[in-house]
Structure formats: C-alpha cells, structure tokens
C-alpha cells in the first residue's frame, strides 16, 4: 500500500482519538471521581515517558544500557528544576549534561 494511504489513515486515527470528547463537551459532565483521577494524568504520562527514556529502555528493554548519559542528564534536570523552578534553565542544564557526557564519551 502506498505511503499516502498509510499517512491518511494515521491522520484520521489521530483525529478520532483526539476530537470526540471535546465535540460532545457541551453535553457531558465528567463525574467528580473521574475528574480527581484525571488531575494525575499529566504527572503519570510524563513520568512514564521520562523514566524509560532515562534508562534507555527503548534501545535495550532488558535494562542493559541503564548507565548512560541521559540518566545523568535526567538527574541534572531534576536538580535544576528543584533549584531554579524555571523550565528554560532545566532544559539548558539537562541538555548540556546530555551533550557534554556524549562529547566526552564517558560511557
């Protein structure tokens, strides 16, 4: 099948996943318990993205590459966020550590 058809299908799937709830928003009410649960959605999703990335589980699901530059960059970014409370400073410090450790080929 051509790439165009694959891309069109992916675009439609993304609309179907993203849009329906918003489109019926004026007719539905989210129950209180669900609303409380969804308040944890950002922290849960983002942490579930961050930790496997830091441990390089995408490249090595068995965890054999857990000791890597991104792990130390993650620790540096967490420290930077705690100290500066500033998103740009967190990016700058975290990214610097990630680039520097690779450049120095520490691992």
């Amino acid at each position, binding site marked *: 099948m051509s790439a165009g058809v694959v891309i069109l299908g*992916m675009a439609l799937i993304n609309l179907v996943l993203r849009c329906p*709830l918003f489109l019926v*928003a004026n007719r539905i009410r*989210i129950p209180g318990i669900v609303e409380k649960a969804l308040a944890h*959605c950002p922290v*849960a999703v983002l942490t579930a993205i961050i930790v496997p990335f830091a441990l390089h589980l995408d490249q090595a699901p068995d965890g054999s590459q857990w000791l890597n530059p991104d792990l130390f960059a993650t620790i540096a970014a967490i420290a930077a966020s705690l100290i500066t409370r500033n998103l740009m400073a967190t990016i700058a*410090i975290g990214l610097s550590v990630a680039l520097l450790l690779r450049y120095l080929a520490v691992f």
Partner: protein
Amino acid sequence: MQAAADIPAAAASRRTEVLDGLKITLPFMVGAAPFGVIFGALATSSPVNLSPFETMALSLFVFSGSAQFVAIALMAVMTPAWVIWLVTVILNLRHTLYAATLVGYVRHLSFGWRFILSAGLTDETFAAMEDRYRRLGVHRNSHWAYLASIVAMHINWNCWTLIGIAVGSQMSGLDGLGLEFAAIATFIGMVVQKLRTPGAQTAAAVAGILATLLAALPYKAGLTIATLVAIAVAVMVERRIEARRSQA
C-alpha cells in the same frame, strides 16, 4: 470545573492571552526542534525514502512525534498499513486521556473552536495548558492562549521537519549527539514542579516503576498501562489520606 456561566467577564485581552500562550509553549518548542530535524532527515533518507511531500504530510496532518517516528521505522521494513495504524492507536491512546482532562475547560466554546483545540492537541500543549488552567482557571479569552500554543507548536514542528528534509543525509550523525534530551528535559521540568502532593508523588512513582517494568511490551503499550494504573493508585492513596484525616 467551571460552567460557562461562571466564567469571569473581566479577563485578559486576546492579545495578552496569545502572548502568554506563546510564552508557556516556548520551552516545548525548543525541546521539539531537534526531533523535527531528525525526523525530516530520517524520513527522506535510506531506508525509509519517503518523498519530501509525504514527510511534510506526516508532520502537517498526523502531527504526533512519537507516532511519526514509529511509522517511518515500520514503513522502512515494509510493515502492512493496518499494523502501522494499530500502532498509531496504541501510541496515541493517551490523547483521549488528555481530552478528558481538559474537556471541562472548553465546554463553553463553539463547535469549531472545540474541533480545532482537540485536533491540534499534543503532549506539549497538554502539559502547558493543563498547568495554566490549573493555575489561572478559565477566563473569557483563555482559549486564545490554547490556540496560540497549538499554532506555535504546529508551525515549529513543520519548520524543523522542513529543515531536516533540507539537510537530509548530510546530517547523519545528528541523532547520536543527545539532542533528543531537550524534549525530555521540558517534561522533567513540568513533572518536578507538580510533585507537591502525596497523590502526585504516588502517581509519579507508580508510573515510573511500571513503565520501566513494562518497557519490553511492543509499541510502547507499557506507557498507556503504566499511566492508567498510576492514576488509579494515586486516587486510592488520596482517598485513604482523606479518610484518615476525617477520622482524626
């Protein structure tokens, strides 16, 4: 969450809202930039070999970094279309959760607004706007900040994809430098600032541990499972704390 009638009439101007929407999105734009370049370069070079037109179509109409990367990896090995679509569903199921989290803040808007604000929703705009709504609540022009965030992310992502296509194979070492960490750093900055309650700390701990244990599941299915379980456990912990407080 607020109903339309509760929304304060006195609110910031559209211009102020748009500028603030851009301001809170800027760090995420920086984080997404390396991914856009790498995506454009990878998609147009061997073994994927998409045309520049097809590559831009992915960034313009799918507009989902992780799904785009997985899709080109699968296209390179001649995966059937239905598998790529199934993977797209699994990868982006979290967008349904995002919509459910934000739905109370957009309820009062017109159908057209709700369509645009949902169709353009990404991890980054979700993180930025969820935080903003929680801090500032809903005001008359809040959705202009949301729109600004979406438009900025979209233009940013497509410009960097285009640059990636242009530099193409000459930049083959680009994905080994560690630039991908920029996007993860924005997520870390968001999460760390939210870890102030036992519920949030529980959600983070459970999500991190489960995502690690389930990392071997295909197509990042572990991401969705870890998220749902983490949310459930966080709610249970909060309920237990509340129950203990009311006993004391």
